[in-house]
């Protein structure tokens, strides 16, 4: 019996910062419904120590969740130094926008680059398809 399956998967809280990526932008222009755009957008870049805590390997999928939405994306190592535990990076896309709060304080400006979410292993679940 696999006792591990009864254990709650480790969960961490992260602040997600979004950014622009030229390869992802090009993929969007070529086909915003294509695999290349999805593969370059549905990604979260984490600190290696956070990956370890989640028991997740590079390239595995993870679940990002907050009160605005839930998405499954691929986890990668950020490659950034110094250590940035608790801070993660995602290219700006419809995937990151699924987690952006509607709270704007009446300014008309959502916090696109300041997203709070929890991360857990998606245990092999596939990346979220975007649609309405």
């Amino acid at each position, binding site marked *: 019996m696999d006792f591990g399956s009864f254990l709650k998967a480790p969960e961490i809280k992260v*602040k997600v*910062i979004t*950014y*622009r*990526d*030229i*390869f992802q*932008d*090009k993929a969007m*222009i*070529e086909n*915003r*419904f294509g695999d290349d755009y999805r593969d370059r957008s549905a990604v979260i870049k984490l600190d290696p120590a956070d990956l370890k805590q989640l028991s997740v390997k590079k390239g595995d999928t993870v679940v990002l969740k907050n009160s*605005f*939405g839930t998405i499954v994306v691929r986890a990668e190592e950020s490659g*950034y*130094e110094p250590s*940035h535990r608790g*801070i993660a*990076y995602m290219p700006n*896309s*419809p995937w990151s*926008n*699924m987690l*952006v*709060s*509607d709270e*704007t304080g*009446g*300014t*008309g*400006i*959502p*916090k*696109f*680059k*300041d997203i709070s979410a929890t991360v857990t292993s998606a245990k092999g679940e596939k990346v979220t398809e*975007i*649609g*309405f």
Partner: protein
Amino acid sequence: MEKNYYVCTGCGMLCDDIEVESEKNIVNKVHTACRVGVAHMKEGRESAVFRVDDKPVDEATAISEAAAILKNAKNPLIFGLGTSTNETQKLAIELARKTSATLDDTSSFCLGRVVEALLQNKFKVCTLDDVRNKADVTIFWGADPSDSHPRHLSKHSYFPRGTEKQRGWEEERTAIAIDVRKSHTAKICGNYFFQIPPGGDAEFIDALIAGLSGKLPKTSYNFPPKRILELANILKGAKFGVVFVGLGLVYSLENLEPLIRLMDALNEKANFHLIPMVGHYNMRGFNENLFEETGHVNSVKFEDGTVKHGPEYSIVESLKAKTVDAALIIGSDPLSSLPRSVAKNLLEIPVISLDPCETLTSRRAKVYINTAISGVESGGSATRMDGVKVNFKPVVETTRLSDEAVLKKIMEAL
């Protein structure tokens, strides 16, 4: 041999040195442009599409349906236009007036505040050509042009040997990045990369202002004062400095007061200009055209011959409060670019989408017309990120209508 150069409308830089090889109205090769520009100029392949309720229709049906939606709406939203020509934008302003519409563009949730402040003369400005020819100190703050405006550093801000900068980046230019992560641009800046924590920009500005006047710079996140003083000394020595303002900085500040204060402080000691890192090729044009007409750069509502303005007329607040009852979206994809928690309200109202390509928004629109790609398949004029006017002609011909032509037809149908 005289060469035929085209303008790339892939981003707010409007590079005007693009060479293209085309045959039978298909662009086969693009020279000089960046990765994004090449993809943009080779985008157009499809034939004209007119759709109502997901079914193909003829042009007249699509136009009359679009006109009916606008006519029946009490408060339609007209949104987008960042990838439209100045001529199209002026027509859209006229259409908004005629239909008592709420009119907004993406600048309401990105760089609109900065463009508004510079149109109100709150910053000293310069052109990208000035930067190429004269700039000795450039700051990329919350901006990563290596990804967002790929030719920025090579064409204007760092690598060129401008008329007064013949010794180039090796000797005569200093590029500085201030950011929360080591972006590709930050890597180029080497030791002049200043990494601050998320949301730490306002404090860094205060510390830098203190450093400029020789005081001890302090931050709650203990940024080494010595490094801030080192930065302040470089800035004080600038003969022609430029701050390129990106979204990272703008989103981090509650208002622009700290940035205005910093630019004033810099100009007490040196000579500093500001250029916003505008993304869409003619967002600045929209801001300027609307400013000329109404005194505001975005988020307006036309009503009984008057113009109301405020964040409540931005796309985000209008959708949140559900104050708009139809939407004409021109060259934009709010279902992709807005938070889903806000964008979902678009699904409750009839949407007209004018866009060269299929998007999440066009797929859920009641009326969809795939327009010509502005700058590739149709010509006009636009305003570069630095305010310079640029005229361009189409690279190839298409059977698809330009957004300008569609707006004219909708106005006639009204």
